[in-house]
């Protein structure tokens, strides 16, 4: 792909009303939807009216006055960006008079702009430069001796972009992008008149301001005023490759803009259907880890984990891996090894890893990191609706009237989707937030939840059942929907259960700590406020009742008829880029791709025929069970691709003990992660920039990942898996991931229509995509539930066994923050550390005061599982009795604290509820110091011999 800029039609598409008008622009007739601007109409005709303040990501503004046109029968020269088309209108966009006016305006612009184009970072990629040429400006008669806004100091505080007010033309595009697109309102125009200037918060540096560094302002800037440092350093790009972000489950599409082999910037792609041209600080800027010096580029092996690593050739590493696995299986049995697939890797890679295990290892000991995040979603939605995925696309939120957010913090975890949601909220949608913490959605500039239900961690089921109680007892349910779409008898049983007085808001108030009135009001709003949409996150799943909570959510949606159309639904916000895909690809020990149980004979036979081996009909081990089995001595070898279970899985001591008990742990990753401290073979992985494949986002959207540069480590991850497989005697011959997808499509009915040529043609597809749904499925369950009738499941509230008491009086809950991603392996290796250099413990002022803890103090955090130390942040974001931390930094190791309690149905760990004590401390615990030593020892590397 060569470098071409995306077309900018100047103003957004009109809101559809179904009516259209016909007009004439420069003699050409065009018919388009009413409400379209003249500017957009002209652009759609292939013309181009000069513009600077208009860009189609934000509403028209009308300030630059370059886009003036003539309209027959109208006085003056209306701005084409703010003037909508009208029936029969006759517009002229290129008359001599217009040229004269535009030149006059441009002459003014340039009279207050530095004349340093040749040395400017945006030279050749500057709208001001382009438009000055377009209007034919030759002379600035005002001279350059008058007043100017030049010579102001640059703000270089943001690690990724600079702000140079001297080059600013005060078009307000950045301010409007921050307001309209991102919804943070961090920018303003300071002052008035000639002195007007863009200001971050109160005229301070961007870094210290309210700016969240999403990049929307940089994207919107028509000049070099806001420009990526990298562009200044490397130069403007000369080619671009469209690909998919490898951070969260939103799945933003980016143009990777390259100069030669060097990545200059990641630019959100306007045609990306998940992100619609928006981005967050991670995807937009935090890709520097891909070239970080910590990346391991040579394979390494060692006989035991207390030895230094020895760099070896790929051949040796692969052969060693295969022989170790075969040796272990020969000694301890077929089921003594297994593997873990990665939600970070592509569908194709994930598919190959589980294929390696099922076909090559001969067992079903495959699991994936979804185990520890959304496995209850898979179970719960499959039980109730019949499919293990969210029901909507992201666009759907723009049709929602009431949004219920449960246990999710999208402004940090799913920022690009959160911006869409906030936009809808600013348009007037109502909001209910069910979360122990006062997240930004509860109240932040320009948005405020109608109801915040700050429940005690661990009481989701009680709360949702109480909402159901209100809906049923006040007869707010949608009887027609239920009768048509669900089993009425099952509903009746469920209704009888939830109607019991013990499940009323009043009865559960002592458990949840939330006022019954507030619960009743929230339930009424959800049931009666129009299109009700539920979005939920790990605050739902990571509990001992995670699966019950998912089913309770599904029950609410069915009871109120909020399934099966735009604007409603049940939507898990997926944590990782490809967690949906990893689940779809058969990463769980009990099922093949497409969620078909291994005991299903027809399915198994299909795979056996294709793969030419007989397959195990028994479910395999889940991750915690693998670790148990390892401790017990029956499980000896593990292949871990792209996941750091030591840091991310609960009860670090348990994980460490399991890993330490194995004879061969193979880690395939970019970096020597924490798990690698216990590994015997390290296979360097490739980044998403270095390979082809697909990711599937939270809306079931399958999108292409495209190779932008050659893998630094030599191989794409799928190639490495193929090498291992073939070394183990399998005969794989994939030349390209497209062939893997063809195999997936052939073996998986919901993916039957998914092929690379279609993805190329259409950009993306949402599964199911097959003969029944040739264009994919943006909204599920439209005419009926996938399982037939929607199933109401009685969800009893079974409290967790993790209880507070005198030793551990506080409840710890965990989560993540905008600038970092999960275990932080990537984001910690970028300048994102500028925002969040360490994990901190949020504690309520009263709890802090009781313990003599002040802001910034070191505190010891202790549970029955372990102890760590970190610094305190005293805040009312958390309720009294609740503390909160993130788990991005290995120095903190928050999972030393978390316990091995887990969801009853899926063993998803109960990260969100741990009874803890917090006490003042002097610094890192002994364990942390020991661990740091051990990690240092474990990471010693003996380089490859020069001769090799």
């Amino acid at each position: 792909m060569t470098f071409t800029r995306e077309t900018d039609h100047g103003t957004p598409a009109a809101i559809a009303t179904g009516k259209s008008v016909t007009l004439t622009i420069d003699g050409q007739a065009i018919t388009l939807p009413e409400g379209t601007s003249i500017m957009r109409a002209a652009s759609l005709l292939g013309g181009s009216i000069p513009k600077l303040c208009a860009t189609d990501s934000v509403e028209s503004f009308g300030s630059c006055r370059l886009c003036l046109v003539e309209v027959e029968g109208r006085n003056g020269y209306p701005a084409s960006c703010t003037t909508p088309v009208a029936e029969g209108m006759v517009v002229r966009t290129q008359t001599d008079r217009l040229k004269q006016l535009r030149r006059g305006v441009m002459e003014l612009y340039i009279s207050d702009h530095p004349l340093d184009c040749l040395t400017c970072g945006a030279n050749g990629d500057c709208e001001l430069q382009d438009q000055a040429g377009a209007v034919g400006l030759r002379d600035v008669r005002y001279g350059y001796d008058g007043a100017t806004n030049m010579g102001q100091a640059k703000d270089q505080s943001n690690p990724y972009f600079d702000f140079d007010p001297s080059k600013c033309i005060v078009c307000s595009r950045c301010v409007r992008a921050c307001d309209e697109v991102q919804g943070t309102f961090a920018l303003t125009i300071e002052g008035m008149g000639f002195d007007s200037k863009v200001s971050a918060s109160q005229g301070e540096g961007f870094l210290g301001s309210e700016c969240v560094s999403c990049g929307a302002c940089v994207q919107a800037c028509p000049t070099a005023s806001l420009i990526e440092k990298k562009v200044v350093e490397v130069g403007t790009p000369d080619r671009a490759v469209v690909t998919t972000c490898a951070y969260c489950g939103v799945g933003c599409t980016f143009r990777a803009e390259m100069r030669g082999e060097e990545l200059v910037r990641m630019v959100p792609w306007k045609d990306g259907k998940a992100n619609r041209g928006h981005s967050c600080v991670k995807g937009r800027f935090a890709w520097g880890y891909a070239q970080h010096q910590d990346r391991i580029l040579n394979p390494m092996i060692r006989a035991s984990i207390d030895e230094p690593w020895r760099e070896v050739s790929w051949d040796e590493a692969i052969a060693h891996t295969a022989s170790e696995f075969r040796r272990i299986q020969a000694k301890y049995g077929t089921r003594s090894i297994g593997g873990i697939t990665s939600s970070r890797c592509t569908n194709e890679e994930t598919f190959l890893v589980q294929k390696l295990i099922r076909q090559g290892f001969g067992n079903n000991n495959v699991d994936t990191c979804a185990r520890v995040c959304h496995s209850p979603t898979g179970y719960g939605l499959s039980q109730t609706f019949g499919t293990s995925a969210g029901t909507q696309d992201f666009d759907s939120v723009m049709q929602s009237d009431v949004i219920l957010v449960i246990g999710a913090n999208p402004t940090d975890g799913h920022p690009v989707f959160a911006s869409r949601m906030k936009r809808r909220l600013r348009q007037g949608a109502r909001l209910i937030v069910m979360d122990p913490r006062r997240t930004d959605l509860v109240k932040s500039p320009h948005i405020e939840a109608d109801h915040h239900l700050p429940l005690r961690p661990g009481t989701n089921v009680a709360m949702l059942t109480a909402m159901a109680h209100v809906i049923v007892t006040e007869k707010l349910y949608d009887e027609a929907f239920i009768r048509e779409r669900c089993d009425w008898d099952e509903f009746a049983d469920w209704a009888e259960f939830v109607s019991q007085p013990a499940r009323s808001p009043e009865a559960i108030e002592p458990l949840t700590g939330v006022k019954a009135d507030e619960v009743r009001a929230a339930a009424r709003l959800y049931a009666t406020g129009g299109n009700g949409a539920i979005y939920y996150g790990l605050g739902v799943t990571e509990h001992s009742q995670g699966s019950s909570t998912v089913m309770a959510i599904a029950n609410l949606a069915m009871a109120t008829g909020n399934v099966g159309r735009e604007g409603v639904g049940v939507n898990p916000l997926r944590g990782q880029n490809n967690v949906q895909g990893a689940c779809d690809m058969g990463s769980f020990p009990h099922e093949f791709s497409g969620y078909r149980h291994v005991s299903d004979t027809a399915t198994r036979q299909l795979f056996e025929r294709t793969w030419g081996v007989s397959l195990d009909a028994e479910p395999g081990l889940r991750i915690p069970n693998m670790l148990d089995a390892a401790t017990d001595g029956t499980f000896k070898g593990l292949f871990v691709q792209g996941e750091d279970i030591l840091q991310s899985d609960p009860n670090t001591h348990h994980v460490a003990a399991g890993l330490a008990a194995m004879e061969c742990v193979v880690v395939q990753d970019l970096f020597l992660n924490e798990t690698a401290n216990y590994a015997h073979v390290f296979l360097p992985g490739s980044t998403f920039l270095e390979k082809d494949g697909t990711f599937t986002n939270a809306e079931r959207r399958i999108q292409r990942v495209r190779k932008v540069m050659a893998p630094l480590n030599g191989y794409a991850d799928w190639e490495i898996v193929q090498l291992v497989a073939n070394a183990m005697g399998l005969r794989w011959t994939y030349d390209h991931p497209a062939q893997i997808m063809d195999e997936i499509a052939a073996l998986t009915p919901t993916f039957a229509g998914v092929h690379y040529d279609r993805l190329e043609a259409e950009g993306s597809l949402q599964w199911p995509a097959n003969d029944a749904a040739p264009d994919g499925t943006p909204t599920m369950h439209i005419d009926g539930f996938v399982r037939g009738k929607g199933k109401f499941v009685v969800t009893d509230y079974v409290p967790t066994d993790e209880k507070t008491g005198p030793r551990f009086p506080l409840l710890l809950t965990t989560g993540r923050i905008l600038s970092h991603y999960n275990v932080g392996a990537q984001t910690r290796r970028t300048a994102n550390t500028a925002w969040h250099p360490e994990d901190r413990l949020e504690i309520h002022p009263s709890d802090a005061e009781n313990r003599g803890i002040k802001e910034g103090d070191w505190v010891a955090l202790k549970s029955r599982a372990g102890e760590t130390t970190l610094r305190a942040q005293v805040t009312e974001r958390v309720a009294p009795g609740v503390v909160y931390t993130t788990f991005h930094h290995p120095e903190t190791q928050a999972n030393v604290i978390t316990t091995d309690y887990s969801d009853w149905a899926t063993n998803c760990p109960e990260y969100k509820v741990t009874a803890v004590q917090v006490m003042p401390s002097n610094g890192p615990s002994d364990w942390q110091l020991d661990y740091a030593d051990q990690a240092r020892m474990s990471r010693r590397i003996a380089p490859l011999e020069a001769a090799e």
Partner: protein
Amino acid sequence: MEEFIEGWTARHGATRDQLLPLLHAVQEEAGYVADAVVPVIARALNLSRADVHGVVTFYHDFRRTPAGRHVVKLCRAESCQARGGAAIEAAAAQRLGVAMGETRGDGAISLEPVYCLGLCAVGPNALVDGRPVARIDGAALDRIAAEVAA
């Protein structure tokens, strides 16, 4: 100031359209809108700091630093100019010992431009600590200077 703002919003509401009234109230109370108060106002009305900063800096009325103990707002608009306003403006600066738009070093007085007080047939006009004064001449300036000195 936090308490004042809390009390004010409790009485008048905390919607965005209360921003100008609140800024007037804060300035009335404290004499100016300190940068440090902006975050408090932003929180009170659920706005960003940037929102409030943009508004504070847009309007001539809002001060980010304290004014002098006395404030003389002298009209510079056409009708007063037609009646000798330019000369009075120069004389006022000299007589009061402070340049237009500035506060005197001793903090006694701020001389500020205003564009029309609506007393256009009797100029040149001024507001002296909020009190309207018409037909300003040398004698009037002397009286003002004496008031300020007192």
